[in-house]
């Protein structure tokens, strides 16, 4: 019945960008509540040890201090949390609580919480705490952690192995024994972290007179936190409201449960007044989740034509002292071993995953969970194979990428692909980047001693996760989303939806989708997000579900309301609803498109003159819709990236010259926003490929925990990024949209690593560790 009114697919600008441009953003960091206290934490200065003495009496007496909490005085407020999931059979992790009890498990582990009238006073008082820790040997390196006789990362573990699993097809051994070629490599991926520009921020506000807890939190997932606070603090869910206003970047980092946020809620419950915690940048480095930290040993078997027969992969990932909650720190490694070789026709596979504890900050889900590692390893091996067989990298991919007419297709690791467009993407990329001319330029410059390299990397991205992602493992993470859409008495449209906005443009695309269903313009649709009291419950924004699941929810809600409006209009107009449709803010005659009655008039009659309607006529003009994916367990998108770099082989410095992306996210709702998601994603992939790394010393101290020492990509270092699209909508939904947030990050580093190694090829040097720092490149060149 509904046809598109043409807003889906258009580059609408974001209305909510206007307030940011005016300096009128509304971040948690900006919130001031009456009688609000400020929290600061005393943290463990060492990676592992026993607390032998803790004296907070001087701190408690300090100027401005209202209360000092330790584990003894605060932890009983909260039921401990344990980051394990049932479907990761045999996984273990210690239970976590608000403040460290008896032992400290990483440098930065919060031990004491101080509440004062200002953050400065709270910090001053932190200096007065007497904390004596008996230093113990920290477990720093993952391989050492697994060796016999290694100390345990935490008491109560039966070993430092959090989880281990093996995926294997029956033909693996035969594939390798019959292979004409085998290529292999060892890869190391550095730890890095999100560095959201707004650090984690929370204001917890418990009112003892009503029993209501309001939590203002910079998070992606307000419903998840409503559930967590309700269960762990023993509060009725209806008395917990989580409000996520503007959020200054999140990238997966702001959906995990952290000690400081939980302690802030506990403190507000204890004191019955608002408590604020905003991490400073040092604290962010010492407590935000880190990501990656993988070591991968991998080999690939090929036939004599360069056809990929199998991969054999061993991934060891180091996750810190605990598995994070509620999603676990195993999810990334799990995705690494399942995404290996994903773009290719590859009959056989063996992947072993070992997840290891160590005394460092927890690692967990960050943008493009596992994708960059699987992609970098796969693509490095494919390039090695091409080199061995004397094939051009494009030719090598063309021979092996799953054909565009081969779907549905099941990967050797068990992923079910509905429909991808690898071959078309490959061809499009070749044109987009002007591949042949670049190769010529590269050869010419090589004769002048200039080392440039071209690298390509196809990828598969997981989006639109259903309940099999976390729900089956027992995690209370919503697989569905919800929307309430209503027509106001003035004929405007209002939508409250559970998917959240962190700048991706969620509110804009939802407005576009609904506008098309109701025959209005997106600026007539007001969308609200991020408040558990005023929007229906749902999973919110993570793993690329905003457009695919949130958008579909909005579409279905919009259609429901459309039906209601048309039924009501038909009653008013005394005609058949099937003869009517919505356009230009009015009910129109479908055949002639002539206006019959405006939405404003419908709103007026339904609201102020329902007495004039036929008896029993539904005039509610408000609909609710929830939606969870029911088709494939996940949607997959695909694409390919290319990187063009120049390596100075005297200094080891790499200059990024250009980057290209061809991407297929299904139905594109807003090209402007999609392109900027991809560009931002590419930079978050290039950052860890060249700059970003959380460096630790042998004692488990993070040694570059400041923005002066931890290198975030800057404008001057980043290349221009050209983007092209292919659209293969998913048939699982009416909307057909998949996700796009991880695509840029998924393959940028892989393309860059291939490009650097292409530049280095004449020297015989290879780099297989990220970040590819000048030092590591010089080491590979034998200059160091």
């Amino acid at each position, binding site marked *: 019945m509904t046809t598109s009114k043409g807003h889906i697919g258009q580059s609408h600008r*974001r209305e909510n960008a206007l307030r940011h441009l005016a300096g009128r953003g509304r*971040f948690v960091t900006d919130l001031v509540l009456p009688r609000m206290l400020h929290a600061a934490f005393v943290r463990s200065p060492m990676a592992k040890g026993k607390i032998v003495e803790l004296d907070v009496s001087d701190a408690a007496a300090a100027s401005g201090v209202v209360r000092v909490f330790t584990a003894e005085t605060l932890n009983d407020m909260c039921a401990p949390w344990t980051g394990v999931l049932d479907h990761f059979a045999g996984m273990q992790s210690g239970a976590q609580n608000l403040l460290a009890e008896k032992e400290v498990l990483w440098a930065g582990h919060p031990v004491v919480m101080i509440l004062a009238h200002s953050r400065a006073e709270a910090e001053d008082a932190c200096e007065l705490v007497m904390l004596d820790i008996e230093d113990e040997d920290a477990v720093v390196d993952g391989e050492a952690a697994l060796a016999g006789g290694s100390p345990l990362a935490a008491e109560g573990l039966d070993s430092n192995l959090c989880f281990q699993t093996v995926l294997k097809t029956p033909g693996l051994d035969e594939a390798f024994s019959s292979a004409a070629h085998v290529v292999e490599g060892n890869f190391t991926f550095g730890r890095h972290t999100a560095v959201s520009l707004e650090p984690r921020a929370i204001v917890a506000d418990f009112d003892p007179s009503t029993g209501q807890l309001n939590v203002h939190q910079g998070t992606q997932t307000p419903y998840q936190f409503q559930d967590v606070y309700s269960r762990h603090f023993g509060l009725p869910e209806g008395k917990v409201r989580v409000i996520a206003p503007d959020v*200054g*970047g999140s990238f997966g980092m702001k959906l995990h449960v952290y000690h400081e946020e939980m302690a802030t809620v506990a403190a507000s419950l204890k004191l019955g007044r608002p408590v604020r915690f905003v991490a400073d940048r040092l604290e962010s480095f010492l407590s935000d989740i880190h990501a990656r930290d993988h070591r991968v040993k991998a080999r690939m078997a090929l036939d004599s034509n360069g056809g990929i027969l199998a991969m054999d992969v061993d991934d060891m990932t180091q996750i810190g002292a605990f598995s994070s909650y509620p999603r676990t720190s195993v999810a990334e490694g799990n995705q690494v071993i399942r995404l290996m070789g994903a773009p290719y026709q590859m009959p056989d596979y063996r992947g072993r995953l070992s997840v290891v504890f160590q005394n460092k900050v927890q690692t967990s889900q960050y943008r493009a969970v596992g994708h960059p590692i699987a992609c970098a390893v796969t693509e490095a091996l494919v390039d090695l194979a091409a080199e061995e067989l004397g094939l051009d990298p494009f030719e090598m991919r063309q021979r092996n990428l799953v054909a565009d007419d081969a779907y549905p297709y099941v990967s050797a690791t068990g992923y079910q692909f509905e429909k991808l467009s690898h071959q078309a993407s490959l061809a499009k990329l070749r044109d987009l980047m002007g591949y042949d001319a670049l190769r010529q330029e590269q050869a010419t410059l090589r004769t002048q001693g200039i080392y440039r390299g071209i690298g390509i990397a196809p990828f598969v991205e997981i989006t639109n996760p259903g309940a099999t992602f976390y729900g089956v493992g027992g995690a209370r993470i919503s697989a569905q989303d919800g929307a309430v859409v209503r027509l106001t008495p003035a004929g405007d449209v209002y939508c409250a939806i559970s998917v959240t906005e*962190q700048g991706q443009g969620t509110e804009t695309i939802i407005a576009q989708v609904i506008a098309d269903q109701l025959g209005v313009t997106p600026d007539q649709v007001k969308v609200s997000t991020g408040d558990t009291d005023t929007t229906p419950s749902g999973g919110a924004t993570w793993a690329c579900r905003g457009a695919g699941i949130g958008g579909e929810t909005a579409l279905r809600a919009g259609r429901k309301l459309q039906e209601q409006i048309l039924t009501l209009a038909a009653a008013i107009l005394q005609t058949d609803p099937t003869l009517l449709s919505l356009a230009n803010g009015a009910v129109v005659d479908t055949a002639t498109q002539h206006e019959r009655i405006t939405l404003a008039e419908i709103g007026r009659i339904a609201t102020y003159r329902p007495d004039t309607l036929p008896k029993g006529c539904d005039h509610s003009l408000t609909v609710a819709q929830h939606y969870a994916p029911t088709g494939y367990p996940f949607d997959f998108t695909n694409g390919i990236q290319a990187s063009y770099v120049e390596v100075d082989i005297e200094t080891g410095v790499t200059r990024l010259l250009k980057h290209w992306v061809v991407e297929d996210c299904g139905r594109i709702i807003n090209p402007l926003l999609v392109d900027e998601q991809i560009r*931002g994603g590419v930079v978050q992939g290039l950052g860890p490929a060249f700059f970003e790394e959380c460096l630790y010393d042998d004692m488990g101290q993070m040694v570059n925990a400041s*923005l002066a020492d931890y290198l975030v990509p800057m*404008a001057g270092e980043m290349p221009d990024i050209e983007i092209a699209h292919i659209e293969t909508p998913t048939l699982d939904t009416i909307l057909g949209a998949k996700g796009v947030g991880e695509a840029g990050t998924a393959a940028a580093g892989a393309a860059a690593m291939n490009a650097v190694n292409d530049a280095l090829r004449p020297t015989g040097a290879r780099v297989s560790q990220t970040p590819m720092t000048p030092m590591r490149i010089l080491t590979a060149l034998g200059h160091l």
Partner: protein
Amino acid sequence: MKTDINFTVNGEAVREAIEPRTSLADVLRDNLSLTGTHLGCEMGACGACLVLLDGAPVHACLVLAVQVAGQKIETIEGLNNSGLVADLQEQFHDRNALQCGFCTSGMLMSAHALLSQNSMPSRPEIRDALSGNYCRCTGYEAIVDAISATAERRSKIVEGVQ
């Protein structure tokens, strides 16, 4: 021990009693509720807190409030109200040169300062001028595009007038 300081913020005379250790950023945000100035690192690296001090961009997190006594501060709120950056804001909006918006105030400050000194900067010059501003969302390109487009538009307006 608090001390009184007088200074001008967005053209308005301000008198505040503050501790000498208080940063300009904290006074703007906490005392004056001018929350458009953001704090991302509090060590002068990220650029989210840039404000204009007598016309020059400075990190409000690195300036002690007592240092600005008698001087003129312009924050994003002031620039917004004056309309001086309206064309920049429009280009940022058109190009979606912001996502979460946390870096945006600082980006506009840097862009405004750059265009005040160099009316037709090249793309490398723009990228260089943004070397004190971190953005984690956009990949920078849209920001560079927006600044470049503003420069071009302004130059056309100047030509048109002449």
